[in-house]
């Protein structure tokens, strides 16, 4: 099947945004770092929102988008609803931050954003569970969406921390998260690749190349994270590489997914160019 780039970028960008906030929040909850600040919240919000808009590029009749309210159980509705909710929560969090409201309120809101965000990245993958695409019909697919979104978000998080020159502990913890994010991406993507192995082997359309890129990129995120963890003082370069590698891993997984998504049967030979 053909790569649907709008949908690829949608889940990568919004997923990275969700995971950026989640990583920041996690550092804060584990007392390794400050709470997510304005910049991180804005970047998260923007990425989630821009990602959401990218999904719209895939549509031919955006004007009818409100029709989605008619069918609230579809995967796409759930994704759209979660994006909306996540944006609202992030906005609330931002307002609380700006107004300097109670810390508890901020933490509760932040935890909510964390949970909604990471679940959202799983849900993005679960929309593709359909019998008509046997290669996708595995729980490993949403897990791999979740994992590679984590790779991208954790790489971005490391980059953000390094750019902001946070303390060594914070950057080091961001490095650890990058190691974990990269590993999550690699392991869960590997699970998907194993589940879809026969389709992958049959695909003659470059899917294998994307898979190779996926694992190299995920490994790069892990390595960058590890180095940054050890040498937090000099993390900007590693953070930059991890950011790029994380996005590459997430994109590569999705590209491979589309390419192995051959239909159960295709009588009309319609290609979704």
């Amino acid at each position, binding site marked *: 099947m053909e790569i649907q780039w709008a949908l690829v970028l949608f889940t990568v960008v919004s997923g990275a945004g969700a995971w950026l906030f989640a990583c920041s929040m996690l550092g804060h909850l584990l007392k390794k770092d400050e709470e997510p600040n304005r910049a991180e919240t804005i970047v998260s919000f923007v990425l989630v929102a821009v990602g959401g808009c990218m999904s719209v590029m895939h549509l031919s009749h955006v004007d009818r988008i409100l029709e989605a309210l008619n069918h609230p159980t579809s995967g*796409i509705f759930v994704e759209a609803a979660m994006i909306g909710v996540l944006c609202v929560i992030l906005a609330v969090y931002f307002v609380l931050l700006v107004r300097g409201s109670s810390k508890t309120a901020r933490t509760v809101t932040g935890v909510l954003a964390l949970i909604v965000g990471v679940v959202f990245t799983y849900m993005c993958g679960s929309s593709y569970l*359909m019998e*008509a695409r046997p290669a996708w019909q595995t729980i490993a697919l949403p897990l791999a969406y979740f994992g590679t979104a984590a790779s991208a978000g954790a790489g971005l998080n490391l980059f953000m921390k390094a750019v902001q020159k946070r303390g060594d502990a914070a950057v080091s913890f961001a490095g650890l998260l990058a190691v974990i994010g990269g590993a999550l991406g690699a392991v869960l993507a590997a699970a998907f690749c194993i589940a879809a192995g026969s389709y992958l082997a049959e695909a003659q359309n470059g899917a294998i190349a994307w898979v190779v890129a996926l694992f190299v990129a995920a490994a790069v995120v892990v390595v960058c994270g590890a180095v940054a963890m050890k040498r937090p003082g000099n993390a900007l370069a590693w953070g930059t590489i991890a950011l790029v590698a994380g996005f590459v891993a997430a994109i590569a997984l999705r590209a491979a997914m589309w390419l192995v998504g051959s239909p*159960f049967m295709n009588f*009309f*030979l319609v290609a979704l160019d």
Partner: protein
Amino acid sequence: MPSMARNCLVINLDRCIGCYACEVACKMENDIALGERWNKVVQVEPFGEFPDVSTYWLPTMCQQCEDSPCTHVCPTGASYRDEATGMVLVNKEKCIGCKYCMMACPYGVRSWNKEQRVVEKCTLCNHLTAAGEKPACVKNCCGKARFYGDLDDPNSDVSKELAAASPDAIHHLPDAGNGPLSAYILSPRFGEWRADDLTQTTNLYVTTEGSVD
């Protein structure tokens, strides 16, 4: 609450003579653009040792699945099941063009209307059937191989045709869990149903590709 009707097409492959009239009848009736189709005949590529080979022609269209993946994934309800007739239909006014239903259809029998930029499919000619007529493909079928009606109505054409067929001659397209309603009749006298072999594209002769955009 009474259960919905189960309207669908039943196709007697013993009678299908591979003439493709249903394709053009469908296109004329529904004014379908070049490169698009709601109905298509594919040939099961002759198999066996020459000259003892078998083949049959397999008209394909929306199978009116009982557990229809297209309606499940549709975010807007544009793909829906009509309560009165039980038909799986598309309300083109609601379609946002996300194409998830095309991805979710196990048979690739949905069509993309390039001009209107919406998904379409076989409507069982419900503009005709609502007026008591038969779908265009059924009416004009040269082998009289196509039947339309409600499986739950024992007096419908589909029920009668299935009742007349030997149980070992009644087949469905490979089921990915969607429960295709349309049945195909192929008697052992005329050919061997290829069952799951049909999912192997090399076993089918399918011409004229189409594309979305």
